[in-house]
């Protein structure tokens, strides 16, 4: 059923069993927006948990936030913002049937994702060396207050879940790059490029909220 024709002409929309290509484009886009809504809700619960504990353990949270390096956070913010720009350019390139442009621009976004993860790794390992990481001896000692743990627990949960989304987003970008290398996109068909870019923007957007919340509350 609807076995997508394997030898389509370059840039032609795939053949659907029951839905015309224009409708399929709009349907996919609506589906993606709904999915993004669920992602926002997923994170919004973490935001509200953060708000509750920030209110309960106000001083601890503000003190703990100073342990993060806001400069690294700021660099990461800039990196992701730039990657969102190139993702948006990639959609434009697809719309003008420039598959090479899609490869280059999504490639840059992909590299930005990689840079983001490397910086995140540097941050995490610095935390580990300072003993702000679960399992280290300082973390387990009585000097380290349970309320600092609340902060860092949420910090690792929120940034960890976000990093997971970065990894998934990079996978999506890679998949679309693979399609673009086969000249699949044209002004008639660029749905995967647009959906991939939408997802990448969401990943960026969530970081925009995480950064001030976690790094700049003091």
């Amino acid at each position, binding site marked *: *059923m*609807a076995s997508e024709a394997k030898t389509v002409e370059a840039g032609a929309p795939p053949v659907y*069993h*029951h*839905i015309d290509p224009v*409708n399929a484009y*709009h*349907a996919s886009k*609506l*589906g993606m927006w*709904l*999915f993004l*809504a*669920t*992602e926002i*809700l*997923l*994170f919004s*619960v*973490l935001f509200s*948990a953060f708000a*509750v*504990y920030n209110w*309960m*353990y106000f001083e601890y949270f503000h003190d703990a936030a100073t342990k993060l390096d806001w400069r690294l956070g700021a660099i990461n913010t800039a990196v992701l913002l730039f990657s969102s720009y190139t993702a948006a350019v990639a959609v434009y390139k697809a719309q003008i049937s420039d598959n090479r442009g899609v490869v280059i621009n999504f490639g840059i976004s992909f590299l930005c994702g990689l840079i983001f993860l490397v910086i995140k790794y540097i941050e995490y390992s610095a935390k580990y060396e300072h003993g702000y990481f*679960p399992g280290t001896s300082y973390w387990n000692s009585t000097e380290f207050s*349970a*309320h600092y*743990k*609340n902060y*860092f*627990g949420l910090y*690792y*949960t929120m940034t960890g*879940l976000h990093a997971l989304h970065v990894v998934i987003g990079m996978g999506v970008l890679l998949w679309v790059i693979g399609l673009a290398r086969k000249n699949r996109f044209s002004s008639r068909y660029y749905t995967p490029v647009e959906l991939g870019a939408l997802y990448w923007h969401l990943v960026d957007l969530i970081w925009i909220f995480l950064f001030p919340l976690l790094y700049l509350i003091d």
Partner: protein
Amino acid sequence: MGIHSYAVDEIGHLKENNYLNCDKSLRSWLFTLDHKRIALLYLASLLVFFFLGGLSAIFMRLHLYNVEKPLLSPDAYNVAFTFHGVLMIFLFIVPGIPAVLGNFLLPLMIGAKDVAFPRLNLLSLWIYWLGALVGIIGIINPVWILKYLQGSAISQWIPLDTGWTFYAPYSTSTGAGEGWGTIMMTLAAFILGFSSILTGLNFMVTIHRLRAPGLTWFKLPVFVWGIYATSAIQVLATPVVGITLLLLIVEKVFGIGIFDPAKGGDPILYQHFFWFYSHPVVYIMVLPAFGIIGEIIPVFSRKPIFGYTAVVFSSVGIAVVSFIVWAHHMYTSGMSPFSQAVFSATTFAVAVPTAIKVFNWVSTMYKGSIRFDPAMLYAMAFVFLFMIAGTSGIFLAVLGLDIFYHDTYFVVAHFHYTIQGGAVIGLIAGLHFWFPKITGRMYNPGVAKLAFWLIFLGFNVTFIPQFILGVQGMPRRYAFYLPEFEPMHRLSTFGTFFNAFGYTLAILNLAWSWAFSKVKAGANPYDALGLEWQAPSPPPHDNFVVPPNVEIGRYDYGVPVNLVAQKEVVRS
């Protein structure tokens, strides 16, 4: 699907090349992209869990029949009610109507060949099966299974015994695998939720994009509106339970206090997150049932549905309000009086759209030409039972009364009136109503009516005593009770057996009729209006042989020209 010839006989029965027999291999079922087959696979899976959940309810009721000679140990009783709740809620009634009847009917009702994303639809089903597997591991106790597989000395086996609400910190520190059972079960809820999200997303996009040309929003069947409202809740509420899982894991693995007060966490926060998902979930269960009743009553009253627009907006209204009532489960948990008052008021507000629906159903029947088919009997029982459910809900919304009724059998009875009397009866009503469309055969109406009366009477005999027990102060989830509660408990147990026997009979009757009935059903056995009745029974893989006529108003009974037009579509 290749080229098929569709030999439809004069009543619209499609013997060859319908969706059931166009390809008979097992692979064609497990990898099907056909929304109709996916619906049937869901139905079969759901009935298994309905049966298991029902069985554990019978054990509980048998135990409570005579606590002098208890059938279960108190620990086993805890496991039984957890098993019952988890299975019935997460594996049976939440996917319930949308997954079965929604999947089957939605494309037919809007004149489409399938849902918007058929592959995603199949993925939802597979994810559901995965979630069921994980959930069962969670109930059995993952740590115990691990020890068993490693062959190490097995300590005492403690399955999940927290109730379906998994309140922290009990659920995260003790019991099944010292909290890992709860984590697995929350993981299962999240996986099942993913299935639910994808189904909801799929349906919303389908309704937006795949309506037949000319079928505008306010010509849509009320069932489709019900599914639409349900889908919105599925998409928006389910992520919250997923994140709760993540926080549970963080608490467990990193030893950070999220919900455990011993570690600086907040158990009330768990309840907030849990109910933010789990209250809207009851509307996921019951909103599509409202839609089913709205479809059945006009057909068997031969009258247009009363106040179509009001019915539509009440569905949407219930979906909206469902998100701002969750804390009414937590009046006794510790909340500011102001918040309590707000949540009490919003809970009262639910009564308004719900009452609109009841008035519409009753007004549709008023001066109608009523035919008491089994589906209609179920629909009328639904209205009756849901009235009791709704009004008892008002009792519980009242702050002062709820302090008394909280965690008593009154709540248990109220909940079962809404979910069994509402969602389950709605599902059974819908299965009877659309059975000819699904199978191309008619069921035995006599047996169906007998089963109906067993269910209806059995249900009331089971749960009216539980209202009384609740008012007398019998707390829920207790394995033992004081002697003065005995008569009502015994009566309730009697009712359970009639109820269970009724469901068994109803389902067996449908199964038997499908397998052995000689009575063919045509495209439109009830002379009903609506697009799904224009397709042959059972429908072909692509649903329609000729493009459906959307000009015929779905609820325009009493306009003879419509029925004539409908018949012409069927014949052509």
